[in-house]
């Protein structure tokens, strides 16, 4: 598809206009923020633009590519490959299959997962992601599942996972869930920590045991 030239004649009507994206994402220092707010006070167009920026930000954060850990592949470049880990219990595979179904089945999957997981939070899922994923393989080292609140900032996700010592090893599923690996010996504490985090809608073990 031909690409229109980027119009070079157009430029910001005020230096503050160029800062609006980072005003919307909260990434300006005090000086820049004061400058923007001073301009916004008298510029209706830029006030509308801030609303647009926030909409863009929300839209960009609403989708994310499927994360499949390539650790084994990378590790093979460093170390000789080792034996594959043992298969997970059946209930694990079952839950993963449910949560990685295509979007068309998301609501049914969410309701079924509600029964399996026993967590009420899945019920509040109202809008599926639009990209369709096939049924993904069960990540070998996953032992917990988590769902974040809508529009959770990526840094908040990282902070929550870090605090719990958890790593994402799969997802997002069409239900918007990610599967995690946590130290099995510390899983209960990690789940309690995740469940207490305001960015997190649901955190559960996924081998059927209660934390």
């Amino acid at each position: 598809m031909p690409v229109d030239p980027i119009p070079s004649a157009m430029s910001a009507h005020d230096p503050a206009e160029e800062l609006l994206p980072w005003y919307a994402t909260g990434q300006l220092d005090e000086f820049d923020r004061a400058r923007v707010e001073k301009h916004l006070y008298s510029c209706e167009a830029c006030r509308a633009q801030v609303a647009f920026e926030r909409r863009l930000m929300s839209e960009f954060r609403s989708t994310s590519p499927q994360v499949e850990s390539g650790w084994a592949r990378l590790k093979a470049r460093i170390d000789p490959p080792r034996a594959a880990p043992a298969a997970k219990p059946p209930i694990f595979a079952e839950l993963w299959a449910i949560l990685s179904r295509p979007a068309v089945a998301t609501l049914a999957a969410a309701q079924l997962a509600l029964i399996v997981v026993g967590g009420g939070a899945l019920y509040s899922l109202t809008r599926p992601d639009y990209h369709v994923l096939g049924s993904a393989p069960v990540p070998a080292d996953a032992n917990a599942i988590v769902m974040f609140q809508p529009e959770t900032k990526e840094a908040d996700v990282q902070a929550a996972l870090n605090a719990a010592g958890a790593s994402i090893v799969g997802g997002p599923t069409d239900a918007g869930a990610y599967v995690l690996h946590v130290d099995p010996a510390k899983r209960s504490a990690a789940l309690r920590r995740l469940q207490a985090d305001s960015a997190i809608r649901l955190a559960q073990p996924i081998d059927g045991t209660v934390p």
Partner: protein
Amino acid sequence: MSGESPEVSRSGILRRPRTEAARPPASDERELLARVAAGDLQAFERLYRLYQPRLSRFLTTLLRRPQLIEEVLDDTMMVVWQTADRFRGSSKLSTWIFAIAYRKAHKARLRWPDPVEDPEQDGRISEDPAPDDELHHQKLHDSLMRAMDQLSADHRAVVDLTYFHGLGYREIAEIVDCPVDTVKTRMFHARRRLKQAIGGSLADWL
């Protein structure tokens, strides 16, 4: 307007933007990197799992060939593994790693230029049954993503680092190795293009 009273709009449009969210303590990441520099594979796995989702997203925005994304991500992390001892801490660890990824992606794009776009992609929407409002939203989302595809890789990088990764313009300038004014200008033109692409549907977005 007072700094203590950020609600500046009668229409409620403007709200105090979120302050920078708490990232993993820099000291934790530094400690992890120090272990990586000492050849601790377990620490490297932890670092990999911290960064792989973010780098996947960033590289997906930059590269249109899926096979390149894995390759560049692995190459990036191999550089981290091999040169961790050279990180001096003059920038954030995330800035250093993203800058490596950006350079690797740039080199990969020189070897493998972007594929020609599918001309039938325009107007294609999911065939999944969806309520009208969802369908409408999806059309808007699709038009936005198509508009992104038409931006240059340099512009896409700045947009992704700003909106998705929530980085400030100074950190972005370090990652893409250009002056901060260039970052601002790229962002200005990119969002103008995105806005044009949304076109008459703009009212639906607000």
